[in-house]
């Protein structure tokens, strides 16, 4: 059950951050959700096989495909995170908001 629980707490924390005001929270919330999906993908391959996948691996070799999925997903999430941060940078540069809140949410 550890896999599902890890997914669950990551999702809960991620969702909470998404729903709170502030753009940095939004970015970090998505980072957490991305982690959650990665754990889920690995769980989808089956967590009872835990050897790093290797040629002709035995009954303990993990399914390599979800790992490849995760790597692709991590990269995409990273790219989008960078983009979101860029948006954040823009937003904060537009000025006109009180200096206290560089990540302006609804006011």
């Amino acid at each position, binding site marked *: 059950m550890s896999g599902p629980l890890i997914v669950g707490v990551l999702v809960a924390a991620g969702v909470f951050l*998404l729903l709170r005001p502030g*753009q940095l929270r*939004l970015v970090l919330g*998505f980072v957490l*959700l*991305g982690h*959650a*999906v990665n754990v*889920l*993908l690995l*769980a*989808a*391959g089956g967590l009872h096989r835990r050897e790093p996948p290797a040629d002709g691996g035995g009954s303990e070799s993990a399914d390599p*495909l*979800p790992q490849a*999925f995760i790597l*692709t*997903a991590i990269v*995409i999430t990273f*790219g*989008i995170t960078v*983009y*979101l941060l860029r*948006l954040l940078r*823009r*937003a904060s540069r*537009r000025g006109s908001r009180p200096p206290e809140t560089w990540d302006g949410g609804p006011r």
Partner: protein
Amino acid sequence: MSVLLIVPLVGPLLAAAVLLALPGRLVLRRVVALLATAAVIAVGVVLLLATCDGEVPVLRVGDWPPVVAITLAADPLSALLVTVSATVVLACLVAAAGTGDDRRQAFLPLTMVLSAGAYGAYLTTDLFNLFVLVEVMLVPSYVLLALSGGPGRAGAGRVYVATSLLGSTILLAGVGLLYGVTGTVGLADLAGMAREVPAAAVAGGVVLLAFALKGALVPLHDWLPRAYPVASPVVVALFSGLLTKVGLYAIIRIYAVLYGGDPAYHPLLVAVALASMVIGVLGAIGVGSMRKVLAFHMVSQIGYVLLGLALFTAASLAAAIFYLAQYVLVKAALFLCAAVVRATRGTDRLSRLGGLASSNPLLALAFGVAALSLAGLPPFGGFLAKFLVLRAANEVGDWFVLMVAVLVSLVTLLSMLKIWGIAFWGEVPRAARERTARPGLALLGPPLALGGCALLLGPLGGPLLQVADAAAAGLLEPAGYVRAVSGR
């Protein structure tokens, strides 16, 4: 034939690479983008002709055996959407030359990448690859929205990126869950699974939910009218022709293949479809700029398409596909009209417009044709589309659906009349009297051409209906597609 399948994906990407390497030379850049898109259209037509004859061209990327290869495949539905979307892209490229949108270095390469992602999404049969290609399509859209947006783009961009991203996350989770249940992400291997394995239906439901968000179905629609109207009209036209359509396409494909059109879900789908139709059209009548009205209409029109899917008969699927194809063209025409308005008058807020019919008769013609087609009036393509939907609804004896569809089309007309009455007929505002610019051919040509398509699709709708029929048959009985893709 099969080798053509990579053209829609690789052609625009190659063009994007060339465009990145060619900063500055605007004319040359435009030619490159146009050529790549024209090539995709040509390939789309060839694929269309081949697939309507029953062939299913299949390409296994990397020549790997079917069990591991990412497989691209075309059936009439994919081929049609590739063709139609590429047509919209072409029109938008021309219009962008008119509005000057493409003077930004990033515009053309991003447009190319975005379109490549969309075409790829239509052609891939692998759900994880679909996720990747959807991202390839969406990420350029984030940038385009931010690059082209007017005031307020930061807020709108935030909402857009956030919802898209949530959709992608849900999508990926759904794909993961499907893999967890079935051990595959290949559409062909998943065929009919949801009917046999209830858990697969749940996992597939997550995927469908993600696409419902991306396709802006009610109640997950509100990001679209929030975000789209901020972008420049040409960019919105581009989005309207590609982005939500991919969501819709994926819903159609997955529901047909994975669920085999399981009738257990029809009531839910019908409810969502009707809600989208109604909420979309009501929203359209309640807002005050051309782009906002049109954005809400997207929601409404998507509902019509989904309705066709929900009924899941040969007639209704054909209706949905016909509707989808014609409405993509019409909607792009309308957004490009908004582009002309904005280029000439500097705004598309209805309260600051007026007198366009007399100052710009050709624009009025293009808008009128497209608007009437959108409202489903003859002799335009929208009329046949609406007729087909009504016919399908009547066929299954659902009078409530029929009535809602009819009333929604009336309100659609009302909202178009609202634009017409204020922007095209009203008094020319004082501010506009000095600064009205004459639109050039590049600006007026695309909406006129697309409007012409809308017009011709009425009297000459037969061939499109044939394609739609063929596509519907493929969705209703996906065995041939599945066999070709799975190689078994």
